[in-house]
């Protein structure tokens, strides 16, 4: 018996075989980041975090929604490969109350990222001034922030326009009779003025079904980017998930059963998109209560007929995996990122009870689903060390210390945000890299400088990894700047870009384990060096 016990103990002490999760270190205590998303019913939703470089040093800084607390901006001062450290920035233009989330986007095309700030009340566009300073631009840009309860945002650039079209998704219309049930607010789209310089009158997207996430995405690779909204069935009546076709020539049109669109009723909270099945078209992961969904085209790209593959691929993540609670989960932010750089995309899902819903898990840890070569996903939240029981909402997976490994920041209701440093296969004292990686930026002339709407293809061996450059999705927050690819054992990659107008770049040769910028019209990329030198050498 003793011998068997020793054998078993030895076995369990062996390193895990198979696709390996990264390990995360809890860096919050020394990080300088201290932030709580708080508030009453209106802030049961929201709680987004935006990761973007606001001071031009190449590191992604953070904007965190605060609910009834002021939103906060943190400058990322992490050393390359080091522990995660931030400095709180004091900017009255940013420290707004009643913020549910924010998305970084270069609205005026000046090369500095701006912020679209979502609020319970007036939404605010903040113009980036450089060095992480911002100024309110609603008036200058002719933007009416309204007074809705805004919980979703997306942006796209239309052909020939230097300014983007902005979409704001709203939740319950608090002022409507009978609120909250059956009183979802309209959503709004702000087209740019034809002459540029600001926005024209918004168009209402009616009916609204209590959107909690929005994403412009080219689901059929037609060059048109339709607006997907995920909606909360808790409050709508007769509603469903929505896909809008928006055109500068015609009124917004909702895809219907006639088009092949299938009704789906979920507690839609967040959207993450990625070509999971590698068929060349984006798939959409939708968070909900209970089963989460992976919507995949089932009849090709001619019609928006989406079926579900979450169950088949082990992605439903519908119940807590630790903590003893067996009630259904509540999913919020979702984000695809290859956290172990093995070239197989992984998925993070923020979880947490709405507040005190007794039919749903109260101890509901966040998920980290590792992608496998056979297309399945496997939860490794506990093995990765990120399983906590806070009521999580927004999150970002960004390489905050520029070592090639995506780190993690999670915003929680009522308790401190979490800061997790990706250690790869190492320990808190020594990060050990996993697979090879590549991080890219795109640049082109004109207003859409960051090429939102472009597709990047990274060819490694016989596989092509593709990413659509989008603004939107997640839950109440998004990421801008470096676009991360895990490339496994590939030492070299060929990269090409389909620019937003459909033109393809040449194939560009890149060595992996580096950052690089691809500029339209140039056949060679420019490597970028992190501020404190290079990784590991």
């Amino acid at each position: 018996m003793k011998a068997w016990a020793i054998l078993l103990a030895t076995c369990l002490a062996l390193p895990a075989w198979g696709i390996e999760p990264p390990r995360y270190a809890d860096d919050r205590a020394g990080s300088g980041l201290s932030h709580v998303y708080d508030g009453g019913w209106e802030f049961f939703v929201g709680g987004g975090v935006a990761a973007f470089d606001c001071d031009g040093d190449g590191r992604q800084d953070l904007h965190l929604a605060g609910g009834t607390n002021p939103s906060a901006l943190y400058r990322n001062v992490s050393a390359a490969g080091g522990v995660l450290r931030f400095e709180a920035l004091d900017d009255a233009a940013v420290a707004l109350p009643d913020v549910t989330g924010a998305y970084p986007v270069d609205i005026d095309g000046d090369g500095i990222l701006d912020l679209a700030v979502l609020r319970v009340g007036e939404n605010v566009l903040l113009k980036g001034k450089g060095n992480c300073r911002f100024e309110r631009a609603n008036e200058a840009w002719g933007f009416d922030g309204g007074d809705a309860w805004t919980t979703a945002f997306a942006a796209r650039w239309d052909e020939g326009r230097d300014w983007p079209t902005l979409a704001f998704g709203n939740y319950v219309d608090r002022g409507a009779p009978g609120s909250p049930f059956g009183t979802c607010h309209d959503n709004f789209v702000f087209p740019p003025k034809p002459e540029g310089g600001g926005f024209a009158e918004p168009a209402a997207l009616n009916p609204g079904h209590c959107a909690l996430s929005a994403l412009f995405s080219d689901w059929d690779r037609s060059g048109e980017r339709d607006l997907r909204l995920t909606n909360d069935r808790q409050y709508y009546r007769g509603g469903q998930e929505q896909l809008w076709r928006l055109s500068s020539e015609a009124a917004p049109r909702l895809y219907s059963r006639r088009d092949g669109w299938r009704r789906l009723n979920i507690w839609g909270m967040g959207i993450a998109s990625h070509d999971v099945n590698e068929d060349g078209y984006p798939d959409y992961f939708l968070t909900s209560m209970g089963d989460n969904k992976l919507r995949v085209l089932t009849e090709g790209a001619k019609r928006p007929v989406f079926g579900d593959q979450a169950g088949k691929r082990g992605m439903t993540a519908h119940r807590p995996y630790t903590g003893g609670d067996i009630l259904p989960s509540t999913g919020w932010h979702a984000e695809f990122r290859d956290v172990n750089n093995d070239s197989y995309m992984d998925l993070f899902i923020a979880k947490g009870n709405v507040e005190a819903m007794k039919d749903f898990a109260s101890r509901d840890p966040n998920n980290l689903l590792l992608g496998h070569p056979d297309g399945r996903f496997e939860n490794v939240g506990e093995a990765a060390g990120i399983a906590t029981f806070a009521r999580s909402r927004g999150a970002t997976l960004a390489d905050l210390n520029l070592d090639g490994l995506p780190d993690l920041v999670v915003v929680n209701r009522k308790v401190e945000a979490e800061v997790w440093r990706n250690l790869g296969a190492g320990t808190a004292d020594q990060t050990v890299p996993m697979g090879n990686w590549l991080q890219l930026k795109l640049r082109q002339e004109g207003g859409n400088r960051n090429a939102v709407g472009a597709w990047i293809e990274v060819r490694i061996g016989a596989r092509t990894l593709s990413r659509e450059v989008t603004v939107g999705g997640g839950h109440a927050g998004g990421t801008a700047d470096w676009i991360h690819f895990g490339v496994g054992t590939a030492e070299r990659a060929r990269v090409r870009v389909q620019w937003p107008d459909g033109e393809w770049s040449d194939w560009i040769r890149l060595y992996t384990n580096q950052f690089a910028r691809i500029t339209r019209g140039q056949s060679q990329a420019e490597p970028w060096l992190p501020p404190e030198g290079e990784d590991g050498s």
Partner: protein
Amino acid sequence: MTDPWQRLRAWLAGLVAGGLVAVGAMAAPVGDERAIPERLDQAAIDAGDVSVEKLIRVGRLWFEAKFTRAEGAGRPAATGAIIPTPAEPDVLPLFFRTAGPDSNACRGCHNDPEIGGAGDFVANAFVSEGFSDADFDTVDPQFSNERGTPALHGSGLVELLAREMTRDLRAQRRAAAAKARREGEAVRVELTSKGVSFGALTVHPDGFVDVSALDGVDQDLIIRPFSQKGVFTSLRQFTVNALNAHHGMQAVERFGARYTGTEDFDRDGVADEVGPGDLTALVMFQATLPPPRQVLPRGAGRRAAVAAGENLFEAIGCASCHVPRLPLDSGVFSEPNPFNPAGNLRPGEVDRAVQVDLAELAAASGVETDDAGRLMVPVYSDFKRHVIADGERPHFANELLSQRFVNRDVFLTARLWGVGSTAPYGHRGDVTTLHEAIRHHGGDAAESRRAFEDLAEEGQRKIIEFLLSLRIGLETPR
């Protein structure tokens, strides 16, 4: 594989297999045809339980072993690509001259004039990327390049030189980046290491780098000294690639479960065919192969010709690329290489690196030291890629595919140490004499070749005599 019971079963299976191997190491069972005499555990190496001498000895056994199907030879469901790439199972036979596997043992090709050496033309390999399906990529030989077998002697010193050069170039880039950021202005830096220029790069204050003026080195500034194109960073990377391509023996660190989700990626029924410890042994054997040396002929006349030829070699410009001696700061070879990419064991993945001081080995081969105590490695190369063919002399551009970002007419400067023992010549091994090989030089070498051709025949012969004195092993001098 996170289910503990699944892990237990796999572990037990490994225990049984390991036991069989251990038994095999002691005394092979009757009728056992397996060729690998001993497996080494990297954890034991990390713990210092395996001596360097044993690593070298076991590495030699691996190098000599004619691998069998019982221990994983063949890759019925995988191509020879450097990235794990599945193939339609069992389409190709176990051995296949172009797509591989094309060899039983490392020694099958690397054997001239002794184990670890070069190979006859008959030992040429076909190197294709292997990413496409087998029918297209390999049955038609026009989709692969044919290469002669390079000698591996002295390759430990070669890898060390490359590491130091990489460090030099990266330090120069790092300093330029810091200066550009500090001063807010673009900084152009001329990149040099060990007296060799690798062009220039410009770092902008925002950290972006213009690499368009680099010369003969990859944009990541890693000196890759192995293969005739200079596309492999380390002996380990070269070995992992070669084991798969030529033998269908798949290394765990590249083809194992970490990156493929399975312990038997090539689906030949053998799991975890080559472990990290086995590879470490193979690397240590190759790294400690004695460096080539100059062996002077017996007669005084020939000796004088060698000396004169060496002077002429430098005088006509051959030495500008075939740099006679490169200084090496430290002869301590540590495994694994710090610049290895994922898919090859890296320093952070072991508790401690294996180390062996190659200085004594070098001294025994006549490698001198300079006043600073640096080993002056007589490698006759600049570790740099050059255009080696042109319209006038196109022979060395006789490949049909560019390889891993390196154009068809560009090759790493051949290391000439040992060249007197490694005929035939050229990357395809299709040149029978040194004289012909020199006359095929074009591109960056055109001027030196013309100078050679302008020499009187006696001068040309002296250069050849000098080159023939650069030998591998203990051959009888001419």
